[in-house]
């Protein structure tokens, strides 16, 4: 009987590992194909197999994608747009994380009448479909004179990112006992001193979560990018989409794939380097509501 149980157990394990492996292949194949395609010359793509390794690996497609591929009217590759995204992401992430930290600090340690209502109202900002603010925001950016620019995108991302960062920091700071800040107040510290000397030193874990979340969201954004930016001010996602859908001449699949990987690289690196925090951000932002 023991033997039978053992065999059954082994079969079970086999099933589990089989399934997990199969699914892992499903998740990995697109990435694999992308990389392989980006390394092949065009004629090899047409004749060879989708899954085949490149016979004559070349970085030519990457060079073109970075420096000379056509994205709509201009043909200067993705490099300019890559830097646009960097210049958009960095200030937007820094500013929205800072504001989120201040808000979370007030909402937990300095609550006032109505602060909970304010938080609830803000929370809705995490959930609205952005389509409903697209048109008014387009007018507002025009009015502020920053429409079509990276600055305009930073502005939009900060405004609609603050709801998330506030949520992160609030949920983290709720666990800091009130007695701690009270002790600091008695010791003579004021609002800012308590924040910088007591609360901020406890915050690195949530800062990492917030930065990674915001970085991924803003880097990957397409909607605001395509609506609020124009010409050479577009972020990389928009440029990638233009590159892929530019229908002049021969379709260069290898360049498309190289461009897609370039666009994905920063967030992938962040994910691989700090996946733990990334997942924590995902679940913190969504489960704890």
């Amino acid at each position: 009987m023991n033997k039978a149980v053992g065999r059954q157990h082994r079969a079970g394990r086999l099933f589990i590992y089989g399934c997990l492996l199969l699914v892992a292949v499903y998740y990995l194949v697109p990435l694999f194909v992308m990389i392989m395609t980006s390394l092949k010359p065009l004629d090899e793509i047409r004749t060879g197999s989708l899954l085949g390794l490149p016979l004559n690996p070349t970085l030519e497609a990457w060079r073109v994608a970075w420096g000379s591929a056509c994205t709509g009217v201009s043909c200067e590759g993705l490099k300019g747009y890559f830097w646009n995204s960097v210049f958009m992401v960095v200030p937007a992430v820094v500013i929205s994380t800072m504001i989120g930290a201040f808000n979370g600090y007030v909402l937990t340690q300095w609550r006032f009448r109505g602060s909970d209502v304010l938080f609830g109202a803000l929370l809705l900002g995490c959930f609205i479909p952005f389509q409903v603010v697209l048109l008014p925001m387009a007018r507002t950016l025009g009015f502020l004179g920053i429409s079509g620019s990276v600055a305009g995108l930073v502005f939009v991302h900060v405004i609609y990112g603050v709801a998330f960062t506030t949520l992160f920091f609030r949920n983290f700071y709720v666990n800091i006992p009130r007695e701690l800040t009270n002790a600091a107040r008695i010791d003579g510290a004021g609002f800012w001193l308590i924040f910088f000397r007591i609360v901020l030193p406890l915050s690195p874990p949530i800062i990492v979560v917030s930065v990674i979340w915001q970085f991924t969201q803003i880097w990957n954004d397409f909607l605001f990018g395509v609506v609020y930016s124009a010409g050479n001010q577009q972020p990389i996602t928009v440029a990638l989409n233009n590159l892929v859908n530019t229908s002049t001449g021969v379709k260069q699949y290898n360049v498309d794939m190289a461009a897609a990987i370039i666009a994905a690289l920063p967030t992938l690196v962040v994910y691989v380097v700090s996946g733990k925090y990334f997942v924590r951000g995902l679940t913190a932002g969504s489960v704890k509501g």
Partner: protein
Amino acid sequence: MHALKIENVYKSFGDTEVLKGINVAIEPGQFLILVGPSGCGKSTLLNIIAGLEAATSGHIYIGEREVTNLSPKDRDIAMVFQSYALYPNMSVRKNISFGLEIRKVPKAEQRETVQRVATMLQIEDLLDRKPSQLSGGQRQRVAMGRALARDPSIFLFDEPLSNLDAKLRVEMRAEMKELHQRIQSTVVYVTHDQIEAMTLGDLIAVMKDGIIQQFGPPQVIYNAPKNMFVAGFLGSPSMNFIPAVVEQTESGLGAFLEGGAGRIFIPLVHCTQALKAWVGKAVVLGIRPEQITHAPEHEGRIQIGVCRINRVELTGPDALVTTCLNKTDVIARVQPSSLCQVGETMALGFDTSMIVAFDPATEEAIV
């Protein structure tokens, strides 16, 4: 001059009124205990004194200045919290000197103070550790150290010992007492431990439902409680409340207690003037367990009665026996050597000099 004066303080959270007109004043160097059941508003009152909460109405004076509208840092106070609230990112040394640093005390003086406080509390070896590397008792000392470093006009303590285990609590209690006698500072100390209240306090304020029920020295509160709540709250096991009827006999006012084994006459020697009006009426007699003991060498106002024993509990130094008088369980504290078996009878002596009578309707003491 009062060290601290609390005048007509009210506090509401939304619709719930938590403090309902608090009036307390203490002299410099006095040790005030705020005691009461959980949720009665002790911490709230302490926070209002500290300035961490704003009172809804009323005034607070520390020394000769009114501090009602000042922020905590300007009130010249120090506070020790129940959870200690040590800054987790700072070393013990930094925890102690943080308040000094913020007040821009010169570096050399800071070092000196930290040294002095650490020596006083015997935590010199811990100065470079982080709070997470300390035991509960050590954390408690550091929290005290943080308060002592500042030399404020008032120390505020919110249940500082309640997170310690029983043995450590007794030790720290003794140290606290000694410390207070040494530095002679003014202290407001919140607890719901009545032994702490009795042993540490110069003055006790017993609170219930946001009202101070009685305010006075421990012995007065213990011996002459103003109402049944105060009487029952202090002392362990708590005071026996026995319903009885006041009667006029040849030897004066008194009441009879009916037990399983006969009637005991209890002469009422206090407040006879007030009690005259109660002849023939029901009252509640309050008598503490230690005032009922094994039959002693007949002395003074001791009344002997024979009682049937229903339960026996040994506590170590003495034994608690339960009997039934006037249909109420009554606990007596006797010497273990004089114990009898459950179900047997034994002679108990009632020290009637300390008996308090209460109005059963209002639960106020009859004075």
